[in-house]
């Protein structure tokens, strides 16, 4: 699927160096960022603690807005974690893209459909799991024939559609952003050497990067919102 990336095989499984390295970088950034933000917590918040608490409040707000109040605290950590991870992953490729020998090694992990579909697949598995855990298998299955048994195929298709759109929306936005970044960079460096194109490529690049930061934040927000909606849809009694 990836095309021209470096890959390696381990235990018979195919790994893509780009995804592994970018993923590790993002994991490290997320962990150390949050670890650093959460040091020296005090009753009266100052500086970085305010930033972290603002993030917590923000993602709590997203989750609480989408599901009944009694369930919200259980999923607030999921919302927080997904938001931070996807946000950092989206911005990562804007700040740092690294290639070697004509092949990419570092970029946004979320610009790869395999990664976003993995995320979306995990979320869908989670929603079905909590649906069964919350309502019991019988009621869970009954949800597919509501309000009419005739709607069963449409309900099943909706589940599949949710899975596809959740992952592909994120992938499409970030991949398109990075592709355009590369094309703008190509204006400045048409044949690997700096050209006069840099004069108009630079402001374009700045504009597009700013816009991509915005897109990345929006997509993280949308992903968390939809995750909450899907979970809420599965656990809430109608």
């Amino acid at each position, binding site marked *: *699927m990836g095309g021209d990336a470096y890959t390696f095989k381990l235990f018979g499984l*195919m790994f893509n160096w780009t995804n592994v390295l970018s*993923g590790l970088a993002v994991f490290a950034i997320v962990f150390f960022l949050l670890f650093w933000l959460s040091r020296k917590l005090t*009753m009266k918040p100052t500086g970085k603690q305010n930033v972290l608490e603002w993030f917590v409040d923000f993602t709590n707000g997203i989750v609480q807005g989408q599901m009944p109040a009694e369930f919200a605290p259980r999923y607030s*950590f999921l919302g927080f974690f997904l938001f931070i991870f996807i946000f950092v992953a989206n911005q990562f490729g804007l700040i740092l893209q690294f290639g070697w020998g004509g092949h990419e090694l570092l970029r946004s992990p979320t610009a790869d459909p395999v990664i976003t579909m993995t995320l979306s697949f995990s979320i869908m598995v989670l929603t079905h799991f909590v649906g069964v855990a919350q309502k019991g298998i019988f009621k869970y299955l009954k949800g597919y024939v509501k309000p009419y048994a005739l709607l069963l195929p449409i309900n099943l298709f909706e589940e599949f559609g949710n899975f596809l759109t959740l992952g592909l929306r994120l992938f499409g936005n970030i991949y398109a952003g990075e592709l355009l970044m590369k094309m703008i960079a190509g204006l400045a460096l048409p044949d690997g050497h700096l050209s006069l194109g840099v004069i108009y490529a630079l402001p374009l690049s700045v504009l597009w990067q700013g816009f991509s930061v915005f897109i990345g934040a929006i997509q993280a927000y949308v992903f968390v919102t939809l995750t909450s909606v899907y979970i809420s849809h599965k656990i809430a009694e109608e």
Partner: protein
Amino acid sequence: MFAQSVLAESNSLYVGDMIFYIVSLVILMLLVKKFAWGPVVKMMQDRADKIANDIDSAETSREEATKLAEKRESELQNSRSEAATIVGNAKQSGESQRTQIITTAQNEAQALKENGQHDAEQAREDALKSAKDDVANLSIEIASKIIHKELSASDQKALIDSYIEGLGKE
């Protein structure tokens, strides 16, 4: 290390990547929950509790303050009336004492006066009595002296006259 790596077989799915991401996301979630989420949420909860407690205790102390103010007000009222009673009592007792003192003084003065009168009466009586005695003695003496002397007729007459005069005066 990239030398041994195969370039992507375009149509194969990177199952390894999927597993790698799922596993590392779970690990990262646990780490973040332990090191960042847990402490910060606990702190936020603690703060929320503290604020709630502070509001409650502020309410309680406000009520206490109101109660204290009321109590103080009523005590002030009490002490005011108490002071009035004390002053009234003091006035009353002063008045009665005054009356008593005056009465005593009057009585004493009366007694003194009576004593004085009595003494004076006594002294007068005593003086009168002794004077009577003296007069009697003197009369007797005079009489004896006169008797010792030769009485002339005129002398006798004068004596008798004076005697009669004296009788008439008695």
